[in-house]
C-alpha cells in the first residue's frame, strides 16, 4: 500500500486535479460522489466548460464563409483545434484531421465512404469479438449492402485477441480491418501495431477505434501506421458531440463525400457539384463549432498532466489496487484479465444481478456502468449477459477505490 501511494504521488496529484472538475465536488443520494464511469464519458474540467460559454458569449458566428470579425474569430478558433489535434495524434497534415460528431460517426463515415468505393461482392471485412457495437454495425450494414463477408477475430478467456486466428482470417479479399485500440468492456489494450503490420502485409487497410484509448495512451498515427483513427472528445475530458476521424491523405482523397450539403462544396449548379478539398469534403453542414473550440481546452488540460504514460501508470495503480481487493470478495469473478489493460475492471458476482449491484452502488453515491456495454457479441463469448464495470480516470483516488470495494463487499454480504 505504501509503495502504491508513493508510486502515485510521484506521478500525479489526483486530489489537486479533482479541484478542476466542478461536477466531482457534489453529493449524490446524500453521499460523496464517486465517479467510476469514465469509460462511458469523462467529466469536464472548468477550462473546457468556460470555453463553451465564452464562445457563445463572445464570438459565436458561422465559420469559413463569413467575412466579418466574429466569423473570422470563430473560424480561427475552430481551425486552431484542428492544428492541436494534428499535433496530438502526430498526423502529417491538418487536412487529415476531420471533425465528426463522435467516434460512431467517424466509423460510419469510413464504412460508408471507403466501403462504397473499395468493398465489392465477395470481399471481406475483419473486426473482432471485442468491438463496441459502433465498430460492428456500420460494417454489417456495408457488408450487407455490398455482398461482402464480415469476420471477427476471436478473443481468449483472458480478454486478449487471438492473433494467430487473425492471421488465418486474413486473405487477399480482406479490404479493411477495423479494431479497437482499447476494449471498452474489458480494458484490454490490443497489440494494434502488430495487427496493422500483419494487415498491411495482406494488403488490407486498418481503422482503429480509439474511443477508449485517447485519454490513456499516446496516439501517434505515424508510428502506428494506421490508415484511419477514430476517437471522441467526450471521453477525453472534452464536450459531447465532437469526434475526430484521422485518415491518410491519399485514402481520404480517393473517397467520395459521406454527406452532401454546405461547407463540403466547391461549386454547385443544378446539374453538377464539385467538392471542396480535404478536410471540408467530409464536413457537410455547420459543424459543432462551440464544442470543437472547447475541445482544444480539453487537449490543453491533458497536456498539462504530463506524459500519457504517467496518466496510464496512475490509473493502472488504481486498477491493480481495485483488482487485488475485488478478488477477495466471495463469488466475484473478474471478466477480462488481459496482459495489457487500461484502468477498467469488469466483473460479475455469482447470485447477484449486475443491475441490482449497480443500483445499490448508486444509492451509495458510486457511479459504475452495468449491462453489456454495447458489446453483446463479447458478452456472448463469455456466456454472460453483462457485467459491472468500474473505469478509472486521473481524478479518481485510492480512497475512492477503497470505499467502492467496501460498499460492494457490504452489498454482496447482505444480498448474495
Amino acid at each position, binding site marked *: 500500500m505504501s509503495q502504491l501511494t508513493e508510486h502515485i504521488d510521484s506521478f500525479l496529484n489526483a486530489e489537486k486535479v479533482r479541484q478542476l472538475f466542478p461536477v466531482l465536488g457534489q453529493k449524490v*443520494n*446524500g453521499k460523496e460522489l464517486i465517479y467510476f464511469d469514465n469509460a462511458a464519458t469523462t467529466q469536464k474540467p472548468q477550462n473546457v466548460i468556460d470555453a463553451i460559454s465564452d464562445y457563445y458569449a463572445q464570438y459565436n458566428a458561422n465559420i469559413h464563409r463569413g467575412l466579418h470579425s466574429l466569423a473570422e474569430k470563430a473560424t480561427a478558433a475552430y481551425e486552431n483545434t484542428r492544428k492541436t489535434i494534428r499535433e496530438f495524434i502526430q498526423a502529417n497534415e491538418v487536412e487529415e484531421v476531420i471533425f465528426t460528431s463522435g467516434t460512431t460517426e467517424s466509423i460510419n463515415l469510413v464504412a460508408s465512404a471507403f466501403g462504397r468505393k473499395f468493398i465489392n461482392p465477395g470481399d471481406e471485412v475483419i473486426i473482432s469479438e471485442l468491438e463496441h457495437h459502433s465498430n460492428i454495425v456500420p460494417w454489417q450494414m456495408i457488408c450487407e449492402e455490398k455482398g461482402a463477408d464480415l469476420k471477427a477475430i476471436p478473443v481468449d478467456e483472458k480478454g486478449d485477441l487471438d492473433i494467430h486466428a487473425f492471421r488465418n482470417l486474413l486473405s487477399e479479399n480482406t479490404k479493411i480491418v477495423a479494431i479497437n485500440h482499447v476494449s471498452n468492456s474489458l480494458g484490454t489494450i490490443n497489440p494494434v501495431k502488430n495487427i496493422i503490420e500483419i494487415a498491411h502485409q495482406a494488403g488490407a487497410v486498418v481503422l482503429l477505434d480509439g474511443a477508449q484509448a485517447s485519454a490513456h495512451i499516446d496516439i501517434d498515427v505515424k508510428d502506428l501506421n494506421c490508415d484511419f483513427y477514430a476517437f471522441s472528445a467526450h471521453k477525453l475530458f472534452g464536450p459531447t458531440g465532437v469526434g475526430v476521424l484521422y485518415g491518410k491523405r491519399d485514402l481520404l482523397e480517393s473517397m467520395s463525400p459521406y454527406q452532401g450539403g454546405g461547407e463540403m462544396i466547391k461549386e454547385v449548379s443544378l446539374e453538377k457539384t464539385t467538392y471542396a478539398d480535404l478536410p471540408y469534403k467530409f464536413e457537410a453542414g455547420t459543424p459543432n463549432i462551440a464544442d470543437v473550440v472547447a475541445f482544444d481546452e480539453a487537449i490543453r488540460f491533458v497536456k498539462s498532466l504530463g506524459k500519457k504514460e504517467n496518466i496510464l501508470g496512475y490509473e493502472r495503480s488504481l486498477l491493480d489496487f481495485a483488482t487485488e481487493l475485488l478478488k477477495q470478495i466471495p463469488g466475484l469473478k473478474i471478466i477480462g484479465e488481459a496482459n495489457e489493460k487500461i484502468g477498467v475492471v469488469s466483473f460479475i458476482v455469482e447470485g447477484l*444481478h449486475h*443491475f*441490482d449491484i449497480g*443500483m*445499490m452502488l*448508486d*444509492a*451509495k453515491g458510486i457511479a459504475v456502468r452495468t*449491462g453489456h456495454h454495447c458489446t453483446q457479441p463479447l458478452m456472448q463469448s463469455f456466456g454472460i449477459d453483462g457485467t459491472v464495470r468500474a473505469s478509472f480516470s486521473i481524478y479518481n483516488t485510492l480512497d475512492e477505490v477503497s470505499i467502492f470495494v467496501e460498499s460492494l463487499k457490504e452489498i454482496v454480504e447482505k*444480498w448474495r
Partner: protein
Amino acid sequence: MEIRANIPASVANIQDEIIEEFSFLGDDRESIIYYIMELGQKLPELDEKFKADENIIKGCQSKVWLTTELTGDRVIFKADSNTDVTKGLIGLLIRVLSGQTIDDILSADLYFIERIGMGQIIGSQRSNGLVAMIKQMKLYALAYKSKLS
C-alpha cells in the same frame, strides 16, 4: 367463505397500504431500494417451465416473465425476474392487481407509483420497464375480457 378469503382488498386500499409503507422509509434511497429488493426476494419463484420466451415482457431491460390464470372473473398474476429490484417492482404490481376482477384491472389507476416517487427511485430506463409491465398486465385482462364476452 373460502372464496371470500381469496378476494384481495380493493386496488385503492392496497395502493394506500403501499404508500404508507414507503412513507416509513423516508427519503433514504438506499433503504427504499433495499425494501424493493426484499419484496423481490419474497416473491415466490416462478416454476422454470413458465420462464419461457413467450412469457417475457418486452420493453424491460431485465428479464421479466409474467403468467396469468383466470379464476371466475378474477385474474391471478405470477411473475419472476432475473434481477431482485425488478422482481420487487413486478411484485408490487402483483400485490395490487393479482386477484382483482378484469374490470378493476382495466380501470385501475395506479397512482401509488407516482405517490411513492418511483420514477426518481428507479430512473427513466426502469420506469419504462415498469410501464411495459403494467401494459402487459392490462393487455392480459383485456384479452380475458374479449374472450369472455
